[in-house]
C-alpha cells in the first residue's frame, strides 16, 4: 500500500488511489537517506550562494584590496581567515558557489544534451549515420580535453560563457560514446520493435522508448562530470583562460592561493572543502534520482 494514498470518497467509503508519477518519484527518492542529505546540502549551497549578495558587497568585500589584515588564520571576525589581499575567504567561498554551480551545471547540461543526442542518433540508426557521427567524435577524442578547451577559448576570447562552452563541447565525445553504447543495448529490445510495428515515429521511439531505458548510465556519468567540470574550470582559471581574476570562482581561489598554501593552508582547505562537499552532494542526489526514476527497482 506504499504507493497508494488513502482517499475518502463522497459516499464515505475510503479507497486507495494511485499517486501521480512525480509523487511516486519523490516517494522513492525520500527512502534513500544519502540522497536526501545530498539534496538538503545542495539546497543549502544554493541558498547561501543567493544570500551571499545580500550579506556581502561584491565590489568591496569580494574584489578589492581590503583593509583587513592579510593572510589571517581563521578567527571570530573572519571564520575562514583572509587571503593575500585581506579579503574574507568565507565571503569569497560563499560568493564563489554561484560561479562553480553555474559552471558545473551548464557545462554538464551542454555536454549531456549534445552528447546524448549525437550518441542516440548514432546508436539508433547505425550504418552511415553512426559512422559519420562516431568517427567525427573520435577525432575530437584524440585531442586532450584541456587542449581543445584552450584552443576554443583562445579563438573565441576569454569569458565565462566561452569557458562554459569550451568545457561543455570538449566533453561531448565521452557522453556521445556512453549514450551510443547504452542506446545500442536498448535498441535491440522487442518493445522497440513492437513500437515500430505500431507505427510510432523514430523520434518518439528514441524519446519515449529508448532514452528512458538508457538513462541510468548517462545520469551517473552526468553527475560525476559536474565534479570534473568544476575542477576543469579551476584549471582554466589557473591558466588565466577561465574566470577573470577578481571573481571568486573556487578553482580560481585555489590557484590564487597556491604560492601561500605551505604557510597558510586555510586558503586552500576551505575552497577545496567547498568543491568536495558540492560534488559529493551532487553525486548523492544523482544516485538517488537514478534509483527513484527506475520503476523496476520499486520494492
Amino acid at each position, binding site marked *: 500500500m506504499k504507493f497508494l494514498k488513502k482517499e475518502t470518497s463522497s459516499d464515505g467509503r475510503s479507497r486507495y488511489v*494511485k499517486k501521480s508519477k512525480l509523487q511516486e518519484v519523490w516517494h522513492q527518492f525520500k527512502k534513500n537517506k544519502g540522497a536526501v542529505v545530498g539534496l538538503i546540502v545542495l539546497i543549502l549551497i544554493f541558498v547561501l550562494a543567493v544570500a551571499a549578495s545580500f550579506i556581502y558587497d561584491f565590489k568591496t568585500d569580494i574584489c578589492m584590496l581590503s583593509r583587513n589584515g592579510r593572510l589571517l588564520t581563521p578567527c571570530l571576525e573572519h571564520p575562514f581567515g583572509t587571503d593575500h589581499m585581506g579579503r574574507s575567504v568565507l565571503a569569497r567561498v560563499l560568493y564563489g558557489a554561484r560561479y562553480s554551480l553555474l559552471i558545473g551545471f551548464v557545462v554538464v547540461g551542454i555536454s549531456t544534451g549534445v552528447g546524448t543526442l549525437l550518441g542516440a542518433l548514432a546508436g539508433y540508426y547505425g*550504418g552511415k549515420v553512426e559512422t559519420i557521427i562516431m568517427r567525427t567524435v573520435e577525432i575530437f577524442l584524440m585531442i586532450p580535453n584541456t587542449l581543445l578547451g584552450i584552443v576554443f577559448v583562445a579563438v573565441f576570447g576569454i569569458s565565462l560563457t566561452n569557458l562554459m562552452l569550451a568545457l561543455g563541447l570538449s566533453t561531448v565525445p565521452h557522453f556521445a560514446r556512453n549514450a551510443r553504447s547504452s542506446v545500442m543495448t536498448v535498441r535491440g*529490445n*522487442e*518493445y522497440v*520493435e*513492437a*513500437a*515500430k*510495428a*505500431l*507505427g*510510432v*515515429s523514430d523520434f*518518439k521511439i528514441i524519446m*519515449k*522508448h529508448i532514452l*528512458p*531505458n538508457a538513462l541510468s548510465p548517462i545520469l551517473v556519468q552526468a553527475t560525476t562530470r559536474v565534479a570534473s567540470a568544476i575542477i576543469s574550470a579551476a584549471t582554466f582559471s589557473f591558466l588565466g583562460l577561465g574566470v577573470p581574476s577578481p571573481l571568486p570562482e573556487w578553482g580560481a581561489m585555489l590557484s590564487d592561493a597556491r604560492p601561500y598554501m605551505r604557510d597558510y593552508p586555510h586558503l586552500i582547505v576551505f575552497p577545496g572543502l567547498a568543491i568536495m562537499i558540492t560534488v559529493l552532494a551532487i553525486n548523492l542526489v544523482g544516485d538517488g534520482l537514478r534509483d527513484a526514476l*527506475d*520503476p*523496476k527497482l*520499486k520494492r
Partner: protein
Amino acid sequence: MKHNEKIDNAEDIVLDIQDLAIRYVTDDATTYAVNHINLRLKRQGTLGLVGETGAGKTTTVLSILNLIPDPPGVIDSGKILVNGRDVHKLSPKELSEMRGKEVAMIFQDPMTSLNPVMTVGDQIAESIMLHEGLSKQDAYKKAKETLETVGISGERAGDYPHQFSGGMKQRVVIAIALACHPNILIADEPTTALDVTIQAQVLELMKKLKEDYKTSTIMITHDLGIVAEICDEVAVMYAGQIVEQGTLREVFKNTKHPYTEGLFNSLPNMNDRNSKLTPIRGLTPDPTIIYPGCTFAERCPYATERCHTEKPQQKWINENHMVACGRYDEPDFHIERR
C-alpha cells in the same frame, strides 16, 4: 490454374502475399529465409502458419509490416498487398499510418515486448493517440476500456509491466495490438512463453476478440493443437517455402505432404502412452544453400532419385488444398497417413 482464378473474384482478401522472396546477406553467407511464397488471408479468416524454428515464419510476417531489417535483409521479389495496397510502395508516413491501424502484431515474448519504464496505460494510449488523433486524456480513457476488454481492471493502467504476471502481460500486449481495431492481426507465437493454463486463457480471449472485433488473424505457431483450436486455414512452412496449404479440415484430415505427415507423427500418442515418439529424422536444411531438388528430400521417407534433382511444383489437389510434392506427379502415390 485454379489458384489464379480465385484471386480474380477475391474481393474478400485482406492480405495477399505474392511470390515473396527474402534473403539475409552478410559478409560470410547469404541466408535464403523466404523462397517465393504465396499466401492469402480472407476477411475475418484465421490462418495458421506452422513450421519448425527457422522456417521463415517470422520473416514472412515482419515483411507484411515492412519491418525486415535492411541491412542485412533483402527482398528479392514479390508483392504484399494489404487491403489492395502494396506495402513496399508506401511512403514512410503511409507506412506509419498502416502499422498498428491496419496491421497490428502480437509479439512472441510478453516479458520483453513491453517497455519497462512506461505504464501499461501509456503504452496502450500511445497507439490510440497516434492513429485516432485523440487527446492524451481521451486516449488514456480508451486505453483503460481496452484493458477491461482483455480482462484486466482499468485501474491497473497506471502500473508498470513488472507489476504484472506473464499471462497478464500477454493480455496487455494483445490490448495494445487491438487498441486501434486493426483489420489484420499477426500473432507471432503468442502463447509460446506461457504455461499451459494461461495459454488456454489467452487463446480463449483471442477467439472471443476475433469475433467481437471482426479481425483477420495470422497465427504463427508450432503447436498443431493451437491450430486445430482456432484456425480455419493452415499453411505449413518448411525451409522458407509453403509445402502444404488448405483449409483446416483438408490439411488435418486429408494430409498430403510427407513433412506435414511427419509433424503429425511426432505428436505424442494419447492412446498409447508407452509408445515412443517418432520424430522427423535429420535436421532442417542449411538455409545458405540452394538445393537443386526438394528441400525436404534429405529427410523424406518417400524421396526418390527425382526428388533430389527436381524442384517440386505446387499442385492444387482441389480448390481448397495445395501441396508442393513432386511425387504427386505419379498418379497412384499416397502417404501412409490417410
